[in-house]
């Protein structure tokens, strides 16, 4: 263990498992969670009774106790939740890695399961949620009376300002969608398997919240995804090559709001993601040049651009050129969302992206680039967020 950087290299992701990704699972969210957890445990070559830790999102409806008793996990010594919607994704893995590194637990499963398409759809917005006097609910008082209700609308406000400051266009956002859909088109697990799009189709798709077209927006998905974290040492004895957690971090910026941090001096960056990135590089001792592929949170395409800037892959305001130059493609500088992202594969609140990063490290992605050693993964943008740097062993 590195004393200065105790987390780096201590833990690894040894198993991944998911349900199918659909628009109507026909099953309970708890059942989706159990299916995903059991699949991940099996993938790791372990038994449910080996698991002693569970981590999920505060947004998840499936409490650890229900998952544990249903799957035969039994006793738990560690259970934890991470808040802020999709910002939690990599944070769950950070919780698990810290638990394993400190001995709080030995086998921790992170999971997320929901019927987000057939059940409660986030895309429909916050206008008519029940009233209460909490600060979280009162925060919506500044937006919903004006009809600013949905994630797409919240992101559109950032996107417009970004375009104004850096000269980016809707086509620059569209290129992100095209890459996602190109990668999804060859991924049998993706909802949009076999259905790539062109930039012209992106431009022709209807407005959702200008400057966002329909094809700038991720899907809504029913499904579950789980990942198994053990110590790096133990992972070496399990069936798959370990995806070593080189770094894991969370970040909440100054004057942070939920997708509406419009009151900062500048709103064209994502400072909480910059904070995550700096920690990832410091913990791992790696830099942007060491990163071979990226799974960047893509609920809406515009916020992929400032992520590339915050994480040091290009200069501020230069992401549009970085993308236009083909650097996100297979064979480019930074192959991106090789599973198809949340636009192309599924919207699993970022957890399917973590699983794809594991496949990239294992060398088993359907869009496997050559020579991948380190993969960066990010969680939800516009919210308090998190990130991971996963690497090959040795």
């Amino acid at each position, binding site marked *: 263990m590195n004393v200065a950087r105790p987390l780096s290299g201590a833990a690894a992701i040894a198993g991944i498992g998911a349900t199918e990704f659909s628009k109507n699972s026909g099953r309970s969210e708890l059942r989706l969670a159990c299916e995903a957890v059991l699949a991940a445990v099996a993938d790791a070559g372990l038994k449910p009774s080996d698991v002693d830790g569970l981590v999920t999102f505060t947004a998840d409806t499936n409490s650890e106790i229900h998952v544990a008793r249903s799957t035969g996990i039994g006793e738990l010594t560690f259970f934890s939740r991470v808040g802020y919607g999709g910002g939690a994704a990599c944070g769950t893995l950070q919780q698990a890695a810290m638990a394993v590194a400190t001995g709080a637990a030995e086998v921790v499963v992170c999971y997320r399961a929901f019927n987000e398409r057939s059940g409660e759809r986030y895309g429909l917005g916050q206008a008519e949620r029940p009233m209460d*006097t909490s600060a979280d609910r009162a925060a919506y*008082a*500044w937006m919903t009376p004006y*009809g600013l209700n*949905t994630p797409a609308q919240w992101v559109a406000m950032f996107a417009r300002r970004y375009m104004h400051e850096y000269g980016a266009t809707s086509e620059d956002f569209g290129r992100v969608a095209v890459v996602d859909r190109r990668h999804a088109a060859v991924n049998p697990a993706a909802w949009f398997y076999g259905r790539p799009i062109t930039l012209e189709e992106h431009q022709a798709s209807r407005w959702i919240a200008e400057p966002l077209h329909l094809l700038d927006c991720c899907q809504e998905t029913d499904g579950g995804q789980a990942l198994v974290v053990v110590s790096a040492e133990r992972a070496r004895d399990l069936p798959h090559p370990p995806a070593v957690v080189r770094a894991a971090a969370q970040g909440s910026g100054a004057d942070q709001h939920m997708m509406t941090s419009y009151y900062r001096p500048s709103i064209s960056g994502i400072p909480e993601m910059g904070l995550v990135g700096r920690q990832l590089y410091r913990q791992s001792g790696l830099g942007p040049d060491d990163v071979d592929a990226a799974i960047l949170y893509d609920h809406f395409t515009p916020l992929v651009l400032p992520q590339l800037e915050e994480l040091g892959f290009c200069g501020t305001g230069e992401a549009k050129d970085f993308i236009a130059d083909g650097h996100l493609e297979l064979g480019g500088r930074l192959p991106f969302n090789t599973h198809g992202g949340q636009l192309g594969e599924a919207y699993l609140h970022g957890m399917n992206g973590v699983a794809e990063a594991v496949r990239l490290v294992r060398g088993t992605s359907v869009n496997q680039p050559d020579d991948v050693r380190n993969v960066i993964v990010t969680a939800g943008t516009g919210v308090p967020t998190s990130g991971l740097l996963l690497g090959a062993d040795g």
Partner: protein
Amino acid sequence: MSAAYEDRLRAFVGREIHPLRPGQDPVNVPMIRHWVEAMEDDNPIYLDEEAARATGRDGVVAPASMAQAWVMRGYAATAAAKGGGGPADELTDLLAEGGYTSVVATDSEFEFHRELVPGDHVAAREVVESISPEKATALGAGRFITSLRTYHDQDGEIVAVQRWRILRFRPKPKPQKPREPEERPEGTAAERPEERAPRPQPAINRDNAFWFEAARERRLLIQRCAACRTLRHPPGPCCPECGSFEWDTVRASGDAHVYSFVVNHHPRHPAFDYPLIVAVVELAEGTRLITNLVGVTPEEVEIDMPVVLDWVDAGPESSLPVFRPVAQEGQ
């Protein structure tokens, strides 16, 4: 509107449009019982003989407000096709000819002469008292029709008089009722007021109530730290600059510029017209605010465009600050 049309309308003033017609049933206890149960009126004088006599009455009486109920023509007649061709229908047709095809009741004043008791048989007649010139209303241009209904008992004595006013108006063009929300045609608020749902209401708590209370009085406030004088929005209990919990407010000048904006198309909320412009404006005082832009089309909005404060009614008890382009001020 032609003079001839005005004359034809005027000819209805003073005319009996419903001749004296008795109700289908005499005043009776079962109908009274249904009425007071539905109205949750537990005054005992309507159903309890003894209680009624204790008030000096001869026995139970009908609620005064049931006067109209005794002469209603009943479900079958109401549901049946229009017709009869009587003077009331003639007036309706004449108003429709003038484009006044929609109707809304505006007020009803009753004067009761005596209480009705079981066994009374009520009849009513209606005479047009006045027809107003065309007036501009929020619903559209229209005419107020005032008529006098008199309610008589079986002996011809007047038991109640009702002055009844309706607005017959020309509806403003409105979009067709859509099948799918996303297929709704786009229109402006004033064009379909009857479809207007209230805006989503803000969740009020101890930290933000002052702001919404001031907004109700059409004052836009900015919270200010009482110790270091730093302005902050959205408001909160504590100053992030100096940690003070003491605060007061300043009233915003209303001058601002557009910092960013979105044009919402989908999903639609029934309180708003689409495309809907939502903006973050930066006030002259330096704080920013989420708001709507009015008096401007989406194509005309630009970042940095100067805007000025205006207000919209957001419900019976609330007003919200919105902003319009400076150039439109005073228009």
